[in-house]
């Protein structure tokens, strides 16, 4: 066996053992060290894709420079190069068209290939001052037996380092993803609004996993479909997906994806909490056509449990919040919610200079209804009045149950005249209410209401002032025969009576 200088392999081993940032740096360093040892002009490392039976250029170093090139060798099963990959050959050496040596970089479960090349030097005519003639004969020296063995030994050393680096890179990437995902979980676990939480999830998943598109659907139990919530595109922009619906049942096309077509470029992950499906996360790289690495797909599937929990938490929070903000009997917001909204509306009016009015409504002789026909009938009357309010107000109006049989209505962008007009219509509607009561003479009980109005800025500039003024107007109506409405102008101009 040919011998080498004592230190050659040891120095190579030591140099490769120094820390590297990744495969590229390792290969670049190794090829740099090999070039003078093997007297090679060009050294290339080709990664192997066994399934496609092809070799793809990973890194090429030519005369001291790294060169980027598109090179894929698709090989036949009996091609000498494929025999080398499969271990049917130890190395592959060519003398023509130029000296060329292939060495396998083999480790358990993997094999890349090292290619060593020497170029035929171009004949160079020397100037006559130098004696003329040709410097080179145009042929490069073939690889000697010693160089072939050295190349094999260097290749074995490189394969060991390559395996470790690839493994370390894989672990580092996985660890990085896990840490990022942990951070992300903390962010969206703290997000208590479903809409915001979903956007954070979709954007986080798209960015961390480098995806072209992420879509989130939630189960709509009432209509038995998966309803689109949010879609995040390749630039991280979130778009509403509300118009999209998917069937709930799983099948070949889950998440609108053709599994048979898109293979490893798309993934649909069900979101499940306590065995119950609450939604679906659909991730794809259809635009870039890049493969979703299987490690990432597995991580995303594992992570789907965390996402499902976060989504469920946010949903529960919204449900609890809704329960605390809305009156169970009338379905109208409660006083606390109304006050908050009223304050916001006042700020808006201060900025825009637009008026805002508030109406306080009291159901006439409600106590008598309760006492005569029972609380169930009283509740029914209250519910009907609530429905009439919801049906007859403008989209921007906001009503609430103030307490007992008193209700409040906020009328943004409505001055005193418009407020009177809106509430007059409502009053007419309330008069039409008929709640069936079997044991009454008429077979039903009707309803009427007294309404007091106050407007910003005429009657006050704060929530308390305006509600108090509306309350004063309401009591004025109640003391003047009920079933009507009044505002502060009426009280001032017509203190003796005569409802509007």
């Amino acid at each position, binding site marked *: 066996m040919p011998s080498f200088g004592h230190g050659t392999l040891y120095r190579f081993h030591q140099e490769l053992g120094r820390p590297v940032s990744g495969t590229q740096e390792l290969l670049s360093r190794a090829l740099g060290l090999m070039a003078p040892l093997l007297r090679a002009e060009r050294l290339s490392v080709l990664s192997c894709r066994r399934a496609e039976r092809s070799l793809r250029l990973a890194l090429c170093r030519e005369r001291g420079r790294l060169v980027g*090139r598109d090179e894929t*060798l698709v090989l036949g099963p009996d091609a000498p190069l494929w025999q080398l990959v499969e271990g049917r050959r130890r190395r592959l050496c060519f003398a023509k068209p130029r000296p*060329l040596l292939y060495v396998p970089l083999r480790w358990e479960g993997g094999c890349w290939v090292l290619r060593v090349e020497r170029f035929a030097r171009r004949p160079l005519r020397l100037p006559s001052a130098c004696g003329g003639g040709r410097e080179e004969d145009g042929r490069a020296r073939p690889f000697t037996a010693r160089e072939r063995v050295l190349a094999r030994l260097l290749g074995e050393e490189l394969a060991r380092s390559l395996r470790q680096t690839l493994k370390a890179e894989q672990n580092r990437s996985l660890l990085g993803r896990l840490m990022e995902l942990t951070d992300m979980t903390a962010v969206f676990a703290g997000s208590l609004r479903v809409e915001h939480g979903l956007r954070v999830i979709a954007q986080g998943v798209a960015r961390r996993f480098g995806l072209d598109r992420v879509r989130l659907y939630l189960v709509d139990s009432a209509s038995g479909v998966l309803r689109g919530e949010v879609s995040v595109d390749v630039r991280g922009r979130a778009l509403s997906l509300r118009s999209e619906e998917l069937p709930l049942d799983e099948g070949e096309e889950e998440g609108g994806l053709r599994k048979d077509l898109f293979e490893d470029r798309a993934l649909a992950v069900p979101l499940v909490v306590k065995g119950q499906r609450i939604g679906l996360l659909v991730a794809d790289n259809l635009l870039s056509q890049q493969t979703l690495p299987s490690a990432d797909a597995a991580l995303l599937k594992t992570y789907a449990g965390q996402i499902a929990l976060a989504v469920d938490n946010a949903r529960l929070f919204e449900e609890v919040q809704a329960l605390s903000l809305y009156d169970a009997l009338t379905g109208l917001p409660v006083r606390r919610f109304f006050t908050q909204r009223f304050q916001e509306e006042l700020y808006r009016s201060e900025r825009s200079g637009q008026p805002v009015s508030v109406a306080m409504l009291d159901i006439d002789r409600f106590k008598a209804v309760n006492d005569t026909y029972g609380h169930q009938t009283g509740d029914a009357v209250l519910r009907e009045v609530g429905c009439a309010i919801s049906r007859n107000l403008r989209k921007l109006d906001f009503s609430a149950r103030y307490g007992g049989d008193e209700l409040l209505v906020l009328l943004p962008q409505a001055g005193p005249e418009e407020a009177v007009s809106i509430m007059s219509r409502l009053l007419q509607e309330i008069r039409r209410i008929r709640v069936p009561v079997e044991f009454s003479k008429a077979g039903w009980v009707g309803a009427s209401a007294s309404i007091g109005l106050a407007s910003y800025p005429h009657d006050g500039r704060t929530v308390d002032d305006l509600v108090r003024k509306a309350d004063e107007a309401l009591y004025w109506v109640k003391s003047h025969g009920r079933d009507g409405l009044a505002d502060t102008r009426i009280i001032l101009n017509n203190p003796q009576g005569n409802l509007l």
Partner: protein
Amino acid sequence: MEITAKPLAELWAGLFQMLRDPDAPRPDIVAVPSHWTPQLARLGLLMELSALEPAFDPAACPAPLRPHACPEEGKAFSLPWRLEAPALFCRGDILERGGLRPEELASPDAFRRACRSLGKVAGGRALLKGPSGSLRWRDAAPFVWARGGDFFSTEGRALFAREEALRGFEDLFELIAEGALVLSEDSGLPVPGIGEGGCVFELGPAPEGPYADRVVALPFPGGAAPLLWALHLAVPSDCAFPAEAWKRVRSLSPAPPPLPDVRTLPALLLAGTLERILERALERLAVLALGGAYSKQGLQDEVAHAAAEADAVSGQYA
């Protein structure tokens, strides 16, 4: 000035990295295959060139490449840099030895027959030099067009699973399976060019080398116009120095050469994506052809699968 050369697959991945990560380092100028421009412009990755110089006239771009450079009327997003219009060349002396005349190769079938009969007189040379690197859309185009087939409609609907296109693919992969079209030598190196005596036919630029004087140009079988393939220069939309980048693009973009009757890959809004789907199928078929596992049924299945995927992706991003 720093120049980074990247293989196309890596360039494609790099462009998507730029889209996904606004903090990723980005160049001031990118060189991309011309037919990617509409998709990259739609994704908001490229700057509109007329916005950089209002006086710039998009009509300065050569007419065949204008649909690539100007996906919207009057708005250019890239300018030609490197143009290639490969012709079909043949070793006249070998053709003569085989008793054939150039005009006898006018149809795709005649060309296939010539490849079979010339095998005996080719002296061990490859008959047709394959592309260096992987089999790409541009390599398959002359075969498909020669049979009157096409790849995509103007709306991006896949046409390459239709009969004419399938016959073109058949020509290509049967030549590979028969060993007439050689993708790479046993050494893994590309087949030497026709000018160097490495093959009988070559689809490429005008040959150079000791055998160049024995080479004759042939019309494309089936009378198909040659493919014009171009690399275009563009300025990324978040370029830090757009004015300087634009100045450089203008200086690097050559005056339009007189272009013969040529054909280009279609200007599609998803051209890059659809190209990757098609090329994946081509790669799988090449593996089958090289492994002796090629069959017409296998070709039809693979092409139909790719066409269905292309249509499904187009549908998702319509």
